[in-house]
């Protein structure tokens, strides 16, 4: 799960990680009041989940409270397009008004899981404010990596190594050591998968603060973080994906016209791949999961069909936990309820497959059955071209 910058900073402050003073607002009047309170000269920052806001015009400096109000007026309601939003962009509904600081250095600090090591790794670079992936590609040595034991947490020597790698000394060095330890605590205790401070700011006064912050959380650990769950902003998510998640379905919208309903994430990806190899384009990734009921299959059907690009649907089920007769019942009852506005190709395998096929055949519905994945893929691609 993702949160906004202002929410991530709220979490950081709970752990004593220094951040600039700021107020989140959604009207120009509130922006003016916030700027006055913060000393007039402020930064106005559009709050969307995607990165790259600065280049997209979502981060602006205001010299006084009136300009802060003006900029807020322009930003609220605008559609911000960055390299992470996709071409459709993301609508801005809140801005963060933050005190403007005297910048001395902009550094990079990030924590994420290194799957290969099985450890969390702190990454630090003196080249902050930039796309760290670009830095990593151009000059891998410019990034210091510090693997951290998940049980022990970051050790003092590790925090020192990070601060040295960032080229800090004196007061800023000490403040950075403290910053790293507190950030790691926040990361571990809130079950983050990413905590990225870019840039990590060193002011002319020698303070070390999180000028920007991106935090992602482990969806599997949200059960123990009700406060984080409360920060979810569904307006940032695809409405169909939100709808699907209500039914425990894993749905990701894509750009093609072949709707896919599959059990298992790996098979769902492989189904997308084979549709493409057969000359089609998948409209979505959809994993109905292991124990889906007829009701859930019906919901999956509805969600796929509410994407107007879908010209045909491929149902590919290899039953393990999920029984073929259950899938068949779901398909039949959903087809009856929703009608069949597009051709549906069904490929069933595994537990109770014969029973499932029988249910499909007896339904009298114009379902196209297939044997094997290639047969299914070619049939569904033909169907999108009206050759069913």
């Amino acid at each position, binding site marked *: 799960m993702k949160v906004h910058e202002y929410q991530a900073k709220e979490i950081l402050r709970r752990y004593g990680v220094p951040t600039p003073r700021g107020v989140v607002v959604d009207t120009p009047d509130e922006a003016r009041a916030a700027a006055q309170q913060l000393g007039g000269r402020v930064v106005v920052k559009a709050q969307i989940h995607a990165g790259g806001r600065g280049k997209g015009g979502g981060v602006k400096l205001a010299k006084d409270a009136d300009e802060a109000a003006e900029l807020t007026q322009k930003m609220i309601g605008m559609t911000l397009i960055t390299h992470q939003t996709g071409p459709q962009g993301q609508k801005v509904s809140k801005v963060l008004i933050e005190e403007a600081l005297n910048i001395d250095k902009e550094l990079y600090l990030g924590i994420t899981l290194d799957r290969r090591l099985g450890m969390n790794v702190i990454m630090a670079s003196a080249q902050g404010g930039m796309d760290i992936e670009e830095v990593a590609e151009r000059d891998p040595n410019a990034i210091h990596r510090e693997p951290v034991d998940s049980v022990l947490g970051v050790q003092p020597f590790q925090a020192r190594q990070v601060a040295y790698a960032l080229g800090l000394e004196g007061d800023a060095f000490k403040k950075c050591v403290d910053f790293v330890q507190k950030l790691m605590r926040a990361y571990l205790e809130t079950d983050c998968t990413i905590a990225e401070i870019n840039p990590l700011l060193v002011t002319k006064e020698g303070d070390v603060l999180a000028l920007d912050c991106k935090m992602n959380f482990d969806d599997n650990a949200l059960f123990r973080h009700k406060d984080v769950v409360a920060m979810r902003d569904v307006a940032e998510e695809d409405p169909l994906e939100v709808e699907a998640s209500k039914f425990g379905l894993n749905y990701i919208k894509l750009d093609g016209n072949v709707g896919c309903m599959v*059990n298992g994430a790996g098979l769902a*990806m*492989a189904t997308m791949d084979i549709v493409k190899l057969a000359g089609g384009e998948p409209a979505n990734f959809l994993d109905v999961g292991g124990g889906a009921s007829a009701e859930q299959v019906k919901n999956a059907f509805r969600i796929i069909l509410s994407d107007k690009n879908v010209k045909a649907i491929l149902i590919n089920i290899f039953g393990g936990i999920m029984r073929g007769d259950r899938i068949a019942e779901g398909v039949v009852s959903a087809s009856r309820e929703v009608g069949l506005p597009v051709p549906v190709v069904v490929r069933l395998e595994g537990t109770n497959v014969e029973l499932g096929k029988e249910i499909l055949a007896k339904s009298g519905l114009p379902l196209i059955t297939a044997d094997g994945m290639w047969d299914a893929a070619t049939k569904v691609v033909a169907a999108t071209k009206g050759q069913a």
Partner: protein
Amino acid sequence: MAIWADKNTKVIVQGITGREGTFHAIGCRDYGTQVVGGVTPGKGGTTHEGFAVFNTVAEARQKAGANCSLIFVPPPFAADAIMESADAGIELIVCITEGIPVNDMMKAHDFLRKMNAAHILEGRAPSRLIGPNCPGIITPDQAKIGIMPGHIHKAGPIGIVSRSGTLTYEAVGQTRHIGQSTAVGIGGDPLPGTNFIDCLAAFESDPATEAIIMIGEIGGSAEEDAAAFVKTNVTKPVVAFIAGQTAPPGRRMGHAGAIISGGKGTAAEKYKALEAAGISVVQAPSDMGRKIEEVWRARK
């Protein structure tokens, strides 16, 4: 022969009185697996669907002689269940549970490493964890320890290892005329207990395995590491498929591990590494069976 699971494996089911635990304990027993009981704290001493229920894994090991545990405990408690089995000296721990927090798994791995060091020091066998978030392991006609449909399997020479459950079934389905030695689902989580290399090494030294299908997916670098291992350590023919060739970057494709991030972990990169290691790759998932038969028949 086979790897890790055979007719002598004695299985207990952790979470046996739950819905999934009950359903699959019966499924495994019906297949012919030696399911010697189950564990549900507080229900020890009772009998459930003909299975003896114990309060702890240690007790199940002592009284029923279990050397394998199959875990269906819900995600918030699953890491604890894994650690309990490791502590009891269970040699094979198969965790089906999906949705365990990464932090919990890191702690469980840490515990496993320390406990295994202790087991070895004291002359006992270490524990192997398969999963979590996996379908389990099956050696056809000997032991089914997991949630896979047993009837599609047939004893034979093909070893199968996969990060995806249903794609494992797909590979089994496509090799039904040749048969499988053992099929292992290592699971879709970012930190699996058993990885490709563990399975490839075991298949390489297993006389019953003559060729290997390896099914990977986008995300991480496990496939690249496996490719490097195959190049220097595996003499048996290997066929590989990678799911997610069409997956967009930055989107998590269902499995916690399946994400292309920072331009890394793409299917294209993985295919390149696999081919460079002399592995026969297939682009279409429907070609796994045909290709493995071809390389198996052509083997030296």
